[in-house]
């Protein structure tokens, strides 16, 4: 009973307050209080997330499931980085307060936490992102086919954007006068116009649809009709 009624009550009250606070200046403070609860919960969620990460990976290692070595690497990276950051291990002494514990700079590359960030995390994440270029190129060669009218339109748009967002636009269509009647045919202008008008019109329509969907879903949650977020046992 309590497991379902209390969350439903909190959701309903919090949702209702946030709606009322948006439309009524007199209740703005109520909305701030509720939003502050959400921020506090978001911070607590980090602890829950960390605990879950520990639990899932420890379970994987102890049962020696396939890929358990990766779990071990994840766990070691998590525990070490957490220790370096929270305990400020190896922090560079603060020149202003050299005798004061915990006053050192732990984000400097000379400290372990800063070193991990600069020389492990940054290159790894940047590499993962950069590898997308290779897969996109391979996919473009194998999958981007002019199979029908829609695909041809998509291809044409892709060509204009790919060329229009680089100096190729100036090389190919730079000779068309900027203030002439055919200025709209310049690739850079075409690219801007496609993104600013054609794409924006479509995006606006999608956004309005999403907004209506969110409003409907939110009302269902606030009124307790949709209870799918409650843990079933």
């Amino acid at each position, binding site marked *: 009973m309590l497991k379902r009624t209390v969350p439903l009550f909190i959701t309903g009250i919090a949702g209702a307050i946030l709606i009322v606070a948006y439309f009524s200046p007199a209740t703005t403070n109520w909305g701030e209080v509720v939003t502050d609860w959400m921020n506090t919960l978001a911070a607590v969620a980090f602890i829950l997330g960390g605990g879950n990460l520990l639990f899932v990976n420890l379970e994987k290692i102890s049962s020696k499931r396939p890929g358990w070595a990766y779990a071990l690497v994840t766990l070691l990276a998590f525990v070490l980085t957490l220790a370096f950051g929270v305990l400020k291990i190896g922090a560079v002494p603060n020149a202003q307060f050299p005798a004061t514990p915990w006053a050192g700079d732990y984000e400097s590359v000379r400290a372990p936490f800063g070193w991990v960030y600069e020389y492990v995390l940054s290159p790894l994440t940047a590499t*993962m992102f950069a590898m997308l270029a290779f897969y996109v190129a391979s996919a473009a*060669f194998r999958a981007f086919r002019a199979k029908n009218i829609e695909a041809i339109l998509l291809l044409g748009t892709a060509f204009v954007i790919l*060329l229009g967002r680089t100096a*190729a636009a100036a090389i190919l269509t730079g000779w068309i006068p900027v203030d002439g009647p055919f200025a709209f045919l310049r690739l850079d202008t075409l690219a801007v116009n496609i*993104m*600013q008008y054609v794409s924006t019109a479509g995006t606006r329509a999608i956004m309005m649809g999403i907004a209506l969907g969110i409003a409907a879903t939110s009302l269902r949650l606030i009124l307790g009709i949709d209870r799918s977020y409650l843990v079933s046992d």
Partner: protein
Amino acid sequence: MSTQHTQSSNAQHGPFIRFLATLDRRWIFLAMMLAVGTPILLQLRPAETAGPLSTATFDVIEALPAGSRVLFAFDYDPASEGELQPMANAFVHHCASKGHKLAFLALWPLGAQKANETAETILKPFHPEYQAGVDYCMLGYKAGNEGVIKVIVTDLLQVYQADVNGTPLSEIPMLKGVTNIQAFDLIINISAGYPGSKEWAQYGTSAYPDAFILLVGTTGVQSNQLYPYYPAQMKGMLVAIKGAAEYEVLVNGKYGETAAILAAQAAMSATSGGAMKETGVPAVLQEGQRRMGPQLVAHLLMVTLIVLGNIVYFATRTKGAAR
């Protein structure tokens, strides 16, 4: 079975089509590596001219009176650094050149580090007159995504009681009298996704349209979602490396070789015994333009690959249909 069918089908075509149809994707990877690596080694740098979005962004900062308060929200991490760091550098350099007071915060955990790095890279060498607390301050990261924006737009102290060094906000000279972010004249958000520019527009300028101006710098992939907010909720927008390069042209055209920059370069040269001699606009302030060379060749390769892929498609489809 299907491999045998493909091989027998490919056998009907000419050697060029057969070569393309059976092309190992590792050759494409190699081509992409060369397309990106060669322009970097050859220092290919095509000329850039500023477009309407970059010009609008530049004009907003130019129009602010010197000493205006600017709030930077660094909502990205090292994964997007390649695309967003050049515009972050240019934004900070431009604002500092105008003498604005800068506050930095982050809704992404690693955004605070990016803000620190930018201050170290741009403010310390090229704007040594900027003092922490007086001319700029680091508010750091806060969890809560758009919830943070919703609160600080009316009550900054409820979320940020102190800066990253633990100094109470009331003791930071540049934040004297600031109770919420409506006290800032301009908010500049550099965003790689959620939470980011969309949330700043929805919970910031949409809710309080006259309180402050919002400028954003964004990755190319999410720019489509942000165009609907321009120019009503966002007065300017830099899109991807192209946007950064165009903006750099405008900023460096006016503030690329200031006395402070020339002094910083002279000092750098002196401390390195002449080994690090740099003249003209510093390289760190031209990163966006430098990255347009690899982007040009990579985009041309992509177009070529799409064309070749379609040649294979039509050649094999026509032969298949005729058979």
